[in-house]
């Protein structure tokens, strides 16, 4: 009996040792490879300056982008590569992944160091900050200086500022609408029928009389779809780089919260938040809002059962939405549009640490952002095959292409870098660019734009707080629970989860950042 137990231990030990050896060997190999890669990178980028397009050695690039695959992708890729061969002597393999695939594959690819030269990153998928803090991406500043001059010029400075982490740039931001502006879409026929004065609407509270009229006279209509976007229209600067985490400071000249402008505060513990959730509870009781906490509005929109809906707006959307739903809509802004760090990081391209060709990847990005031919090719496919030009700004599907079922078309193509150098579908108005520019300049930069919170020191608290938010945020915002009873519990649970530790950490990091900013500007 004893004897066999001894044997058993020895066998187990043997196995463990051999397994560990295997892993050790595998990983050491991995580490060495990384180290050599890394030094090769820095060397070649130093010498890179002398290389010209003609004597560049051939290169293979792999690019993972967040985009739905198109049926004619191979055909377009052949054209892209023909062009790239001429321009930068490179062959690129673009792997387009839809959301679920992207979220499943990319973390594993980045963590394991599988070959990848370019990858999409953002504040909402494949998180930029988390990846930078894990060391997933290469710093790009010197590469940008050498190969990205055109991009540096054409992309607004405010976007570059938002990408900075510890004064280093780790990704090239998408050049599209900047910031967020909330607003309300309303059925035009109803607005006209009851002569609703929508131009007087400025904040979420101004909606109430309208909802009341609609509810009273059109009982079959749902007055408002869901109120979360109304809450988000209250301007504040979220410090943790996340919509939900507690910790915010005021924005602009007429701040929404009665607070000291430099003090980070818990937005959920303010009288303003209390007022909002109390109003929503009242609205819900009055029948303006859906009773189900996870109500899905799309079906009711399609059948015209909704009067108004709050949303995060993008230029032109009201026309698109009207044509899609088949009835006319009115739109008004609510609250002030804001640009926060998270908005700026709404999309960008990074070069993973495993890239063997970082300078060539950068050259490709430079082309993608500055070369209209390449940009249009990737967004709309091949001219004459997939699209034809209508005028110098607009295109339409080529004859024989089914517009409902295109073989290749990414619409306005935000996922391919720069929307300002490519054609739009003929349904877009002539002043599309101007509308974007007006939208961008109408949004005011948040005071902490460019500040990036490092969540790592408080990750225990954040995990617990995320759970408290998951439990209380939506029911309170949707008005499905009585704030009289629930709000105090919510705040108390936030306390237990460590909200004070989080806010103190936010304040500390913000102060450090501010000090660094002012010292940097005084040097200049």
């Amino acid at each position, binding site marked *: 009996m004893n004897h066999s137990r001894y044997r058993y231990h020895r066998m187990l030990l043997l196995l463990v040792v051999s397994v560990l050896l295997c892993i050790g060997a595998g990983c050491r190999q991995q580490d060495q490879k990384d180290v050599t890669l890394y030094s090769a990178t820095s060397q070649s980028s130093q010498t890179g300056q002398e290389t010209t397009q003609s004597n560049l050695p051939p290169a293979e690039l792999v690019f993972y982008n967040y985009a739905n695959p198109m*049926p004619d992708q191979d055909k377009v890729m052949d054209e892209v590569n023909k062009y790239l061969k001429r321009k930068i002597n490179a062959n690129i393999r673009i792997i387009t992944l839809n959301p*679920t695939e992207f979220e499943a594959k990319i973390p594993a690819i980045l963590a394991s160091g599988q070959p990848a030269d370019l990858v999409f990153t953002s504040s909402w998928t494949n998180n930029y900050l988390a990846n930078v803090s894990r060391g997933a991406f290469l710093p790009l500043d010197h590469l940008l200086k050498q190969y990205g001059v055109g991009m540096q010029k054409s992309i607004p400075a405010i976007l570059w500022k938002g990408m900075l982490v510890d004064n280093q740039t780790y990704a090239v931001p998408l050049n599209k609408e900047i910031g967020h502006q909330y607003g309300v879409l309303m059925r035009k026929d109803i607005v006209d029928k009851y002569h609703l004065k929508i131009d007087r609407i400025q904040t979420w509270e101004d909606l109430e009389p309208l909802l009341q009229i609609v509810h009273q006279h059109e009982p079959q209509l749902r007055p408002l779809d869901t109120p979360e976007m109304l809450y988000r229209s209250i301007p504040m600067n979220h410090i943790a780089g996340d919509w939900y985490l507690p910790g915010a400071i005021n924005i602009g000249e007429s701040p929404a919260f009665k607070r000291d402008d430099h003090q980070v505060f818990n937005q959920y513990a303010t009288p303003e938040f209390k007022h909002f959730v109390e109003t929503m509870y009242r609205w819900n009781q009055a029948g303006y809002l859906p009773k189900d906490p996870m109500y899905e509005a799309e079906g009711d929109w399609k059948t015209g059962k909704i009067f108004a809906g709050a949303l995060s707006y993008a230029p032109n959307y009201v026309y698109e939405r009207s044509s*899609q739903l088949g009835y006319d809509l009115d739109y008004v802004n609510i609250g002030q549009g804001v640009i926060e760090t998270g908005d700026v990081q709404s999309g960008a391209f990074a070069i993973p640490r495993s890239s063997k060709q970082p300078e060539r990847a950068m050259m490709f990005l430079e082309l993608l952002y500055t070369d209209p031919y390449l940009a249009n090719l990737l967004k709309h496919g091949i001219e004459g095959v997939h699209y034809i030009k209508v005028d110098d700004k607009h295109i339409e599907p080529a004859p024989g292409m089914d517009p*409902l079922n295109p073989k290749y078309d990414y619409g306005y193509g935000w996922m391919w870098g720069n929307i300002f150098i490519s054609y739009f579908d003929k349904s877009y108005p002539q002043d599309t660019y101007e509308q974007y520019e007006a939208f961008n300049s109408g949004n005011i930069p948040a005071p902490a734009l460019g500040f990036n919170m490092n969540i790592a020191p408080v990750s225990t608290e954040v995990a617990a707080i995320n759970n408290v938010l998951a439990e209380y945020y939506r029911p309170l915002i949707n008005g499905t629970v009585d704030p009289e009873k629930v709000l105090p519990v919510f705040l108390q649970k936030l306390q237990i989860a460590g909200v004070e530790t989080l806010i103190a950490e936010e304040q500390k990091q913000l102060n450090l950042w501010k000090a660094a900013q002012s010292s940097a500007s005084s040097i200049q």
Partner: protein
Amino acid sequence: MEQTSSKFNQLPKSWNLVFNLILIVLCVVCIIPIILVYAISFTSEASLSAKGYQFLPSEWSLDAYRYVFRNGDQILQSAYVTIGVTAIGTLFSLLVTALFSYVLSRRDFRYRNVMAFFLFFTMLFNGGLVPSYIVNTNVLHLADSFWILILPYSLSAFNVIILRTFMQQSIETAILEAARIDGAGEWYIFARIVIPLSKPGLATVGLFTLVTYWNDWFLGQLYITNPKLVSLQYMLMKLQSNIDFVTSNATSATNNMLMAQIPAEGARMAILVIVLTPILCAYPFFQKYFVKGLTIGGIKG
């Protein structure tokens, strides 16, 4: 009259009736949602958003299926992959599982408990997704290969333990002893005595394995980028995800028109119907091993 339900072993008539009634109620509860799924897949999107779910569609439509079968070539290719993976995977897995289970079921084998523990340990502890990915891609170089769809699921500790228990229960040591005295080798005993005697167990484990391979999209999603190796489930999952994406991110005029056309709800259900129907057709094949009276061979006693 069915074959061998011997008279002396039958349930009294009244109880037979009660059992039947209970089962009918249970079956109704189980089948209603399935009927609903089939019905929705044949309902037009317009009547779905106007009237909600209906058991008898007020407006029939094949749009959902037309939409799903739009890229017929890819579906065909994916069906080959899935059938190949399921067939080869199930056979390979059954072989490895049966061999190992037999070894573990041998009471005279000194290391059976050590090995059983070694096996069981993997049921609870695992390295997690990223370490597995690193091993499979950087050490075993299995990314984008046919075998990555088979090997990770080919040995399930759960299945081995179940089959071992079946074997311990239905194969008496005396039979094995007798065979050995007759001069039979281990391989002969395994193939001629153990396998035939564990048919119900093999069928159970085989069914579980088959379902695992048939339903899997996870491995594909993680390791496959080559369209030639995209399995049916993975393809349908991608399609579903594309629909969700277009429905929730309509920001261009073309996308918007597209979105109005996609039969979102119906397609979701049609996808399920495509996945479910073959499994339901395969089930009776296994079922014959779960019904008493048809499988007990002459070897016993």
